[in-house]
């Protein structure tokens, strides 16, 4: 087939207003800056994040340590499926968790339609939107984000950032060392749809539930204020 690219580009060039060289374009762009949003204060970040999670219909558990995180995952999987199995990517941070001691049988790889529970380890959490940043790569195969009924995402408190732009600063840093992953996804809730008379239903095609295991400390009073239950171990 004939390549229409040169013709379209020439037409664009002829019709567009600008006629600057690359350097001037880069300067003009830099001068435009980034979004004018009020940055969150440091002491607002956690509460804002938790509030967004609640709005986004995300389930939350707080774990003070990695062994506790595993135990909480084990209890959830057993309660929901009367089993121990879950699938996880080849993220080193996931591999280093004490699964056996905690009672979870993890298969490391990409989710298949038979897998009910997948576990991911977030690169970043974003307070502004209540999102978890996940890459689609060897560490976290894309199928693990969308193919299972339950998606569990572990987020370390130190990886929580305030804004979308803050998260992208981290993504740029990662990309510089690891290369650009095939996909960068902000997961902000369970799969949902309002396509039948605007009635919001969870679990359209992807996970019915999104469960965040927050590794760190959250004051009990804050959890209650936001509307999350404190689940005993």
């Amino acid at each position: 087939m004939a390549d229409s690219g040169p013709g379209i580009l020439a037409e664009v060039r002829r019709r567009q207003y600008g006629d600057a060289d690359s350097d001037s374009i880069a300067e003009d762009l830099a001068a435009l800056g980034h979004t004018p949003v009020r940055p969150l204060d440091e002491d607002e970040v956690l509460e804002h994040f938790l509030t967004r999670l609640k709005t986004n219909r995300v389930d939350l558990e707080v774990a003070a340590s990695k062994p506790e995180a595993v135990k909480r995952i084990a209890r959830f999987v057993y309660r929901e499926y009367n089993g121990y199995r879950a699938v996880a990517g080849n993220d080193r941070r996931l591999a280093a968790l004490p699964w056996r001691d905690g009672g979870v049988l993890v298969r490391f790889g990409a989710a298949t339609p038979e897998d009910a529970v997948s576990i991911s380890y977030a690169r970043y959490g974003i307070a502004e939107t209540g999102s978890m940043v996940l890459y689609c790569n060897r560490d976290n195969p894309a199928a693990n984000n969308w193919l299972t009924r339950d998606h569990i995402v572990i987020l370390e408190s130190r990886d929580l950032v305030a804004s979308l732009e803050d998260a992208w600063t981290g993504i740029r840093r990662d990309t510089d060392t690891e290369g650009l992953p095939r996909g960068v996804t902000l997961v902000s809730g369970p799969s949902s749809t309002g396509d039948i008379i605007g009635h919001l239903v969870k679990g359209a095609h992807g996970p019915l539930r999104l469960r965040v295991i927050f590794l760190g400390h959250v004051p009990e009073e804050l959890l209650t204020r936001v509307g999350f239950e404190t689940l005993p171990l």
Partner: protein
Amino acid sequence: MKQTSEHFLENARVALTQTEARQRMTGLGQLMPMMRDAAVAEVDFEALREHVKRIKDHTLDNLDHYLRQFEEQVVLNGGHLHWARDAAELNATVLDICRSVEARRVGKGKSMITEETGLTEHLETAGLQVTETDLGEYIVQIAGEPPSHIVGPAFHKSEQEIRELFLDQHKLGRRRLEDPPAMVAEAREVLRERFLSADVGIIGSNALIAETGQTLLVTNEGNGDLVSTLPKVHIVCASIEKLMPRPEDALAQIRLLARSAIGTAVTAYTSFYSGPRRADDLDGPEQYHVILLDNRRTEILGSNYQDMLACMRCGTCLTHCPVYIGAGGHAYGWVYPGPMGSVLTPLLTGLEQASDLPNACTSCGRCAEVCPASIPLPDLLRDLRAEENHNKITPARWRWGLKLHGWLARFPGLYQALTGAAIAILHRLGRRSGGFSRLPMAGGWTQVRDFPAPQGGSFMRQWKRRQKQSADRG
């Protein structure tokens, strides 16, 4: 898709007689603006949209630079970039890719571009099985209807209509499907098999990032992500104006897009894709293609209508438009309904066959107020009407009427005297009944409602009186 925009008036007339559908649309026109307003109140909407407009203007002013940069990055990331001058070229390119991998099944995410080119029909004619996987798109696909809204394609259908459709089309035996969750669960099961068996996945894109070569996909269902991941070939169809220079610019747009479209700060999934699976990835497509469509957008670039190229397809102008809510999406007769469609359809398909659309406007200005891309929609609609008049597409008696009005407006004294006299006569004639059930040259109005008798003199007379009163007080 077959265009019926030239029958807008007839389509709208039929839609207005469908009482139940009208009630649903009225509900939509109340609910969606309420949700949008609450979400937008969280941010400085004016500052955000001004910023996004500056970025978009800069991008469009230097579009060839960013298109070239994007092409380089896509190739660098291991993808293939194709250009399509028009609908036929895009459809042919997709079919070529499908044939090159001997594909039989295609899974599609929601893409207005492919609605524009009629891709599904083209592929089906060539013998491929094509499944729309966005639930709303799937519903209208099995119903054999076009979408009625760019965000909620099946907003026009009732719960009972969808229930009957599923019971009829899914051969799954006796069942009740008592509520929307039950219907969604059934669609999930039926479509899951389609996701897993698709050879090719096709999606649209909310933005193309020049710096990184990424394509942005915003969804709540996750269907677009599944078709980007499971099939061996991933095709992204997007139009050339979707470029954004940096990822941060797309993030700025996301802040406005989700709030305007569905009244939330963010959708469940916001994904940036950039190529085929990497060497050590455990899943993902083997091939990644991006097809950039022109389809007359270069004609809009640099014209008086360039602002329209900033449209982010949020659909908020639709649910804020009294004409859209009254007439429904199908009346517009093509892919894009409502105010944005009334501008875009004539520009992409020709003013002659879509000439009713720019006139389907009350000039209330709500669309421009809420547009996150700062598009002056009423101004563009007015300019299109002026073009219709100039090109003699407007009926002769309208043109003569406009000409007379234009001439009269050049003589304010005479204008005010004549309109004042007309109002006085109408006031006197309608004093007893309070209105008119028939009026010469206003049959369109009085056919469906009475014309109220004017009260209290012309606007200019009242204005002068008020100014005089305040001067006397001052």
